[in-house]
């Protein structure tokens, strides 16, 4: 007796007893449907996280910041340290082999004047390697260049948000504006950067990247020369040559800065940690979803085992007859196991369809991101197969072990 025949025998048996088949499969249908929904939600969440960080910038970068000290009284070494400076940034570029670019940043809120209009605005001193420039190209004009930094040029690249406030419809490129009374030439205008967690449009669904749009950029050397008393940095972004080089670069930078500062008064964070943090939040939901899916699958499996056991009691005589005609214990075992798998496979197929429906409903009604990966039908199929195998084994063993003489005598 081959597997296909056992399978079709199982399906025939299901068809002959529809009410039982429906009750049996309800559990597995719900279980597989929840698995499908969970997987879609997980894929959706992950895809959104990745999309967010891709919009924010690549994963090759490390961010170095001053660490906050918990202690009230600083040690002598801590007092002696100049903290993170522009000179540190230069040293990293010269001494760390794994570094590709460094982007020191100093932020100041400064008076920006054009004509008779004056605003207090966020101005960022940076260089040509401002990491977000790749993902947020200038809409018109150009970004800050190495030459701007070398020459301490008085040039500014504007964020898009205040463009209309300052210039109205006029093209700002080439216009002279004054920052704290010093004339600067506008050389570029940034493109607008947007990311909405719920697809945008809804109330409370803010553009989480709006702060980029409100910033203006000048060469960091100009910032140090004109507007600050020291070259202390607000932050330092560095990029490794490749994503794989990131851990090595972190070690190199840590060693270098510890030597220069005499104390570890800085922190190094990677974007990867942000992704991981996001993934951890996602994890919590995933665990809850998985628990629900697992419980439904388990209940579905128990229902199947239960109904199969009672069906075996109904069919004791049939088992006796089959054995009298030459069925071995193995034949009977395979027969009933395959019947269980047939039930769960059909349940799995229905569950897949129901799961797609549930996914669409979750997407539409709750506004949660979902994504249907091609692996989902496969996983649903394997899950229903596994439930059939696991919960079919016990009833099938019972059937296989029946004594033919007693089974034939059974009324």
């Amino acid at each position, binding site marked *: 007796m081959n597997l296909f025949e056992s399978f079709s025998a199982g399906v025939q048996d299901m068809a002959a007893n529809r009410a039982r088949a429906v009750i049996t499969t309800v559990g597995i249908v719900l279980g597989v449907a929840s698995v499908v929904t969970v997987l879609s939600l997980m894929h959706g969440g992950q895809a959104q996280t990745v999309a967010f960080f891709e919009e924010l910038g690549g994963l090759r970068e490390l961010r170095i910041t001053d660490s906050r000290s918990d202690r009230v009284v600083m040690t002598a070494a801590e007092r002696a340290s100049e903290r993170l400076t522009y000179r540190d940034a230069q040293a990293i570029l010269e001494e760390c082999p794994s570094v590709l670019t460094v982007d020191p940043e100093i932020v100041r809120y400064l008076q920006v004047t054009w004509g008779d209009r004056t605003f207090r605005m966020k101005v960022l001193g940076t260089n040509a390697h401002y990491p977000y420039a790749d993902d947020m190209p200038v809409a018109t004009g150009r970004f800050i260049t190495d030459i701007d930094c070398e020459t301490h040029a008085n040039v500014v690249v504007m964020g898009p948000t205040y463009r209309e406030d300052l210039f109205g419809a006029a093209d700002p490129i080439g216009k002279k504006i004054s920052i704290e009374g010093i004339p600067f030439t506008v050389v570029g205008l940034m493109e607008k950067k947007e990311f909405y967690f719920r697809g945008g449009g809804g109330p409370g669904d803010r553009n989480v990247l709006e702060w980029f749009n409100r910033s203006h950029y000048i060469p960091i050397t100009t910032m140090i020369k004109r507007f600050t008393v020291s070259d202390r940095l607000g932050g330092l972004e560095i990029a490794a040559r490749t994503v794989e080089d990131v851990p090595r670069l972190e070690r190199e930078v840590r060693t270098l800065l510890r030597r220069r500062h005499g104390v570890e008064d800085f922190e190094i964070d990677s974007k990867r940690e942000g992704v991981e943090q996001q993934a951890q939040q996602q994890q919590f939901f995933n665990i809850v979803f998985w628990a629900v899916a697992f419980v439904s699958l388990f209940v579905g499996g128990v229902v199947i085992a239960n109904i199969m056991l009672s069906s075996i009691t109904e069919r004791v*005589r049939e088992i*006796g007859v089959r*054995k*009298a*005609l030459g069925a071995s214990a193995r034949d009977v075992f395979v027969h009933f196991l395959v019947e269980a798998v047939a039930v769960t496979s059909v349940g799995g197929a229905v569950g897949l369809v129901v799961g797609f429906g549930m996914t669409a409903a979750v997407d539409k009604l709750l506004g949660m991101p979902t994504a249907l990966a091609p692996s989902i039908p496969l996983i649903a199929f394997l899950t229903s197969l596994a439930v059939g195998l696991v919960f079919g084994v016990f009833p099938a063993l019972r059937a296989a072990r029946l004594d033919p003489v007693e089974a*034939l005598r059974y009324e």
Partner: protein
Amino acid sequence: MLIRTEALTKTYELGAAQVQALRGVTLAIDDGEYVAVMGPSGSGKSTLMHVLGCLDTPTSGRYLLHDREVGGLTGPALARVRNKEIGFVFQNFNLLPRIDVVANVSLPLLYRGSVTRAERRRRAIEVLETLRLSHRLGHRPNELSGGERQRAAIARALVSDPSILLADEPTGNLDSKTGREIMDVLDALSAGGKTVVIVTHDAGVASHARRVLQFEDGVVAREDRR
């Protein structure tokens, strides 16, 4: 010699009590014989049939089928012997209710393995034709009369061309006219050279056989030959 048993015993444990169903049965049945095993209920004749049919194993003694010891076989080996050598006919037919007549009749070939679906079907239909059931091939057992059911059951017993046809009260659930019809079938099979062993308490049924073994208290008490 087709069947030879030597001092067969079978003891059941019923709770604390021990029941000796067979107390040393020694008999021989030759190829082509027509044998009836008679006796009151509880005489052990059903147990003998189960042991001869390889559904059950003896507690002690020897059972040789085709000069091969089968009394000690277990599990899959015993299932193979049942499948190849034995054709069972039951009092209550024991056809599977959810499949049609052809599927029922071809079941023994299903468990033989290596017989294709088409071949199984072909042989089942062939046997059903000889038993005048060609008009019932696609019917479920509950659509058949009692006599037709038993003929279908006999077809199932014959489809694998077994050495022995073992019939347990084959007319017990049939009216006397249909019962005679079934006995005609068994007579014809015996006349065709098939070894037939009938277990019955009905003297009329037993009278068809050439040889009657009277069973009492787990032993052969008397033997009549005609």
